[in-house]
């Protein structure tokens, strides 16, 4: 299925290659580079490229292209999903997935890739199994390896591969047993010129960090499970139980994992936490434009709106912006025409605003386009859909674990059209 993998950095150099079958010449990537040149933006490179003898399927993550070489029919999503899994694994192992991190850990990278695919077909992609086979690098282990000449390859036999709960490694032991769950919700919205909502929906995830000894069997129940309209589970969740009782019942993997992602039914009205008052105008014949933006809290249920970041792509005709923020800092990049304003926390008593003028190219006519405003924000201790975890129980083990649940709301793809 997957024949070879090339890693290409932002400047177009192949810095790592791996072949699972015969060696495919690097020159196959020329087709990729061609497509890259044609694309105006890095994310506009087509994920699937057809060449005379091969097909190239690529993903872009952390400014690295992961280019897989395929020789015959295979579902493209199969490859794309696998490549993303590779990136996730690297991130899990090295903390970050950058060119430098990959180069620093090149041995582990090759070991991982070798285990993840056999003859091009995915073999072990569960992080728990991989960690049994290949130990993640730590400073201490790297030093020991250098001195004693051993490798990161696990000493024990990887028995996890034989288990029916392949996502959990066996023989887990902790002195402090703890299980943390983060309920994170993101609001995707498009707000039109007049401030009315065109579309808004809530997407949520529950990320878990579980460090429990033995084979714990957990159940997690919600106060209002009907809110969840569409869910997708980690393979550990028992689907039937959810169907019947709306309870999440599972034997968790060890460590960090995403338990659940969900969509809140669109019937429910979505609370929009902020409003934006804007006045961005260009006048015909004048080389100046007005820029006027004010933010305010809307439906926040009394919680503070933090980490607000406003960004907007201004029209090409704008040469510079001379603005005055009432709080925070702003930057304008005259090359990319990207305006960003780091607002910070919104104080309801003194609303943050950004006002001033934009200078336009002299003689150029007024731009046709209207910029859109993208907003990022965070609200702690609240899930905007109102989702609440009722209780978390553990079976199968005797000890008493420490349990914690945290809620957070973020803006996802939150856009205001002007």
């Amino acid at each position, binding site marked *: 299925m997957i024949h070879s993998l090339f890693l290409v950095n932002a400047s177009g150099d192949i810095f790592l290659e791996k072949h*699972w079958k015969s060696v495919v010449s690097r020159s196959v990537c020329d087709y990729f580079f061609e497509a890259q040149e044609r694309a105006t933006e890095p994310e506009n490179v087509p994920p699937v490229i057809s060449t005379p003898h091969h097909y190239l399927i690529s993903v872009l993550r952390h400014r690295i292209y992961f280019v897989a070489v395929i020789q015959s029919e295979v*579902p493209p999503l199969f490859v794309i999903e696998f490549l993303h899994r590779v990136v996730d694994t690297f991130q899990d192992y090295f903390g970050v997935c950058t060119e430098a991190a990959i180069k620093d850990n090149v041995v582990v990278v090759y070991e991982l890739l070798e285990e993840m695919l056999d003859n091009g077909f995915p073999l072990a992609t569960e992080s728990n199994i991989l960690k049994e086979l290949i130990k993640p690098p730590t400073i201490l282990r790297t030093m020991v390896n250098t001195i004693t*000449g051993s490798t990161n390859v696990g000493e024990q036999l990887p028995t996890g591969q034989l288990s029916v709960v392949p996502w959990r490694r066996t023989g887990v032991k902790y002195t402090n047993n703890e299980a943390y769950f983060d309920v994170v919700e993101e609001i995707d919205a498009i707000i039109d010129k007049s401030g009315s909502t065109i579309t808004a929906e809530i997407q949520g995830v529950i990320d878990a960090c579980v460090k429990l000894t033995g084979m714990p069997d957990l159940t997690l129940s919600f106060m209002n499970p009907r809110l969840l309209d569409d869910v997708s*589970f980690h393979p550990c969740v028992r689907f039937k139980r959810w169907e019947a009782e709306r309870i999440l019942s599972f034997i968790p993997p060890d460590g960090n994992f995403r338990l659940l992602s969900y969509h809140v039914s669109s019937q429910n009205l979505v609370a929009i936490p902020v409003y934006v008052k804007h006045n961005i105008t260009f006048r015909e014949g004048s080389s100046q434009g007005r820029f006027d933006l004010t933010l305010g809290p809307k439906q926040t249920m009394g919680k503070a709106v933090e980490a607000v970041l406003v960004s907007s792509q201004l029209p090409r005709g704008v040469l510079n912006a001379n603005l005055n923020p009432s709080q925070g800092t702003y930057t304008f990049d005259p090359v990319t025409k990207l305006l960003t304003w780091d607002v910070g926390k919104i104080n309801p008593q003194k609303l943050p605003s950004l006002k001033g003028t934009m200078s336009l190219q002299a003689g150029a006519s007024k731009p046709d386009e209207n910029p859109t405003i993208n907003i990022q924000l965070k609200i702690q201790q609240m899930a905007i859909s109102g989702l609440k975890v009722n209780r978390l129980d553990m079976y199968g083990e005797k000890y008493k674990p420490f349990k914690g649940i945290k809620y957070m709301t973020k803006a996802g793809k939150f856009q205001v059209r002007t």
Partner: protein
Amino acid sequence: MSASSAFNDEKGGSSSVGEPEYGHDPASGGIFSSDYKRHDDLKEMLDSNKDALKLEAMKRIVAMIARGKNASDLFPAVVKNVACKNIEDPNQLIRASALRVLSSIRVTIIVPIMMLAIKEAASDMSPYVRKTAAHAIPKLYSLDPEQKDQLIEVIEKLLADKTTLVAGSVVMAFEEVCPERIDLIHKNYRKLCNLLIDVEEWGQVVIINMLTRYARTQFLNPNINESLLEEGGGGDKTFYCSDEDEDEDEEKEKQAEVSALAKRKPYVMDPDHRLLLRNTKPLLQSRNAAVVMAVAQLYFHLAPKAEVGVIAKALVRLLRSHSEVQFVVLQNVATMTIKRRGMFEPYLKSFYIRSTDPTQIKILKLEVLTNLANETNISTILREFQTYIKSMDKDFVAATIQAIGRCATNIGEVRDTCLNGLVQLLSNRDELVVAESVVVIKKLLQMQPEKHSDIIKHMAKLTDNIQVPMARASILWLIGEYCEHVPKIAPDVLRKMAKSFTNEEDIVKLQIINLAAKLYLTNSKQTKLLTQYVLNLAKYDQNYDIRDRARFIRQLIVPTEKSGALSKYAKKLFLALKPAPVLESPFKDRDHFQLGSLSHLLNAKAGGYQELPDWPESAPDPSVRNVEVPEWTKCSSREKRKEKKVEKPFYSDSEGESGPTESADSEPDTGSGSESVSVSVESGSPSDSEESEESSESDEDEEEEEKEKKKKKKEIKQMQASERLVSRSKPDVSFQTIAPSSALKNYELLHRITGEGLSVEYCFSRQAFSPDANMVAVQMHFTNNATSDTKNLHIEDVKLQSGMRVKEFAEIELLPAGEATTAVMGVDFCDSTQAANFQLCTHTRKFFVSIQPPVGELMRPVFLTENEFKKEQSQLMGMNEISENLTLDAKCRNEHAIVQRVTTAANLSRVPCGSDKECRFAGKTVTSGSLVLATVATKDEGAAQLTVNCEKMVIGTMLVKDLLLALTQ
């Protein structure tokens, strides 16, 4: 690990420096790099009696091989250790690793050893080793395809495995080695369905895709009734209002037929078909996008229409994922929305575009939005489009304008609104936007000639305001093209343009000249002086293109004593009917590729793609899937067994059990059985036994009835197919079907049995045969089904009637086994239907074959205007005219159908015609160039008269026969 980056550089080419795997410390690689030393080290490790060391050594070898390094000197050591010792190691992980190493050695001499090892491992106690054996199968197959038969035996054995660990891997091997052996699946079908939910994600994808194909060969189309209804109305939107009444009638007829059918025998879904749908549905909740997509395509291709809707929500969820996932999902959604629009309508807003989306995603979303547009949501969509028009991404704006154009053609109610909106865009500052709007407006106008005048009048007024040259030029072209519809305004526009001629841009000037020429030809009384004035101005223009054009046009349109033969054709040159462009979704008909596949995404067949078969007309025997229930399982009745299967829980509803279990095992009694038990089960139950309780279930009468029903269904299906063809080709396009229609009929030249594996088909491609214009092009399609290559394919010993000639195709030197190729030969049939006989020779054999043309292929289309047609027809009366009265086939009573059938039967082109009661066609015989004119005049209630006028009476008579046949059947 400071040295690692240096290492990395070496990786590309030189292998002289040590691999990281050899020296444990990469930095020391250089010191211990002598080959001898390296291999010694590995050999020693392999010989050790410590499991961990052996495992380690083998892992390194695998890594080395996988990177394409030459490991052949390690070969004896590995084989000695691996094949002989480790494969019998008590530890299953060692056995598995050993097999992995062995199967990664790409040396042909090892094939027999590998084969033995795989066979042994396939009956290993440990499912993990069996999984590894499954993985090794494609490796051996790619090394030596000759082993296919033996490998199929192993696959067959492994397919019977009852553990989830093996299922995914063996199906993958099946797909790589023998995807055509669908018969191997029968016995394992139910088991695979039941195991599916517990198989690892990647295996799920492979199994689901394979089962989709399987189901298409074994079950009946669950939408057989609905699809009949759907075709007439909703599915394909026709652009022409005039068809609607007819469509309704057809629909009623169909409905009647369908209900008649339904009364006789309602469709009942095979329980196995239901099993598949039920067991895949929960996987829509998978976190793995590939799994979700696999289930979605399974439902799209296999589920009853009413149930397909469930996939929409899951697919929309994937749109939240990475942009590459979005890209693939949107492509598939775009194809789905054409067939099943209703399914995604509730999620319309999920496809709204954000300014931060990458352009390729924006354009795909736009495609989906356009496909979803209908009468009720069009105003919302158009409002959304309005904001897109103002985007900074100009490629996207251009795509939006095209989308608006498509909405306008599909939804009559908003056509005027769209046109007005587009006209406003003509004053946009961006050249690209203007150009795109003009193109779209032009297309829209060409599509609905009856409404021309209003809009053209409106456009004419705009010439006063619009300054963008491209837009002005396009407007002038439109006025010229349809000057007959605006007889009063056109000369006035020319007058204004004549005034401003000297100040216009070059492209506008050229169009002014064009407009003048067209007006001169149609309305010379009013415009003669104006035209001369314009031509005079152009004669002294600075631009030589314009001067040339003026000179050329003057010669063409103004008759002088010296003017050449061309001026006779001036009108034909300028006022030829131009084909209306087609505004169709690029995703139309893409669903003939299995959705979710690479081939679907590329819209081209990728290597190794397995065609999704059409539903069978009658279901093959369902009892092949019955598995004999082993005696030791107490449940003997199928019902009971099935119930248990249905309730079979997701892995761990077997709550009480502790520790690792083979929970996925479909045999209810296996419980937490150890591996050895499950193996003994396998060997103990002869799974391929044919005995079953329910093979005698259906009694014979029922079968008979069923057959009849199937037959009927088949007929209907065929009719549908032709229907679809008709509605697809717009009449304006078929006017100039000089290019061949897709429905070329294939004839058999050589059957593969007589041809000893070589089969040849031919069709009349209707393309001009370039080496000799008097010849008919015959396209031959050679397929080598034999196991050996065919060489030196050529023609010999041509036997022809006098006057006939043949231009042979160039010799095909090699046609490898399993490959196909095409070649074109030319035959001058001398306007007769005599066969051309010749021998088709290969390097070993000669076959006598002959090509006999239907009369309709002996002609090529010519372009005539209505007047010319009438004139020519009047000269071919009496003996040269043959008329027949006929009753049109019930499915062939609209204009489209008639045009389609006539142009399929004979290579004629349509002649424009004022009356809607008549269809006219014209052509010329290929050799002598004699005119062939055909007229179909329709009367009430399907009565019609067919008239053929042709100098060659034999051709005429035969053509009448063929056309009668085409129109009445």
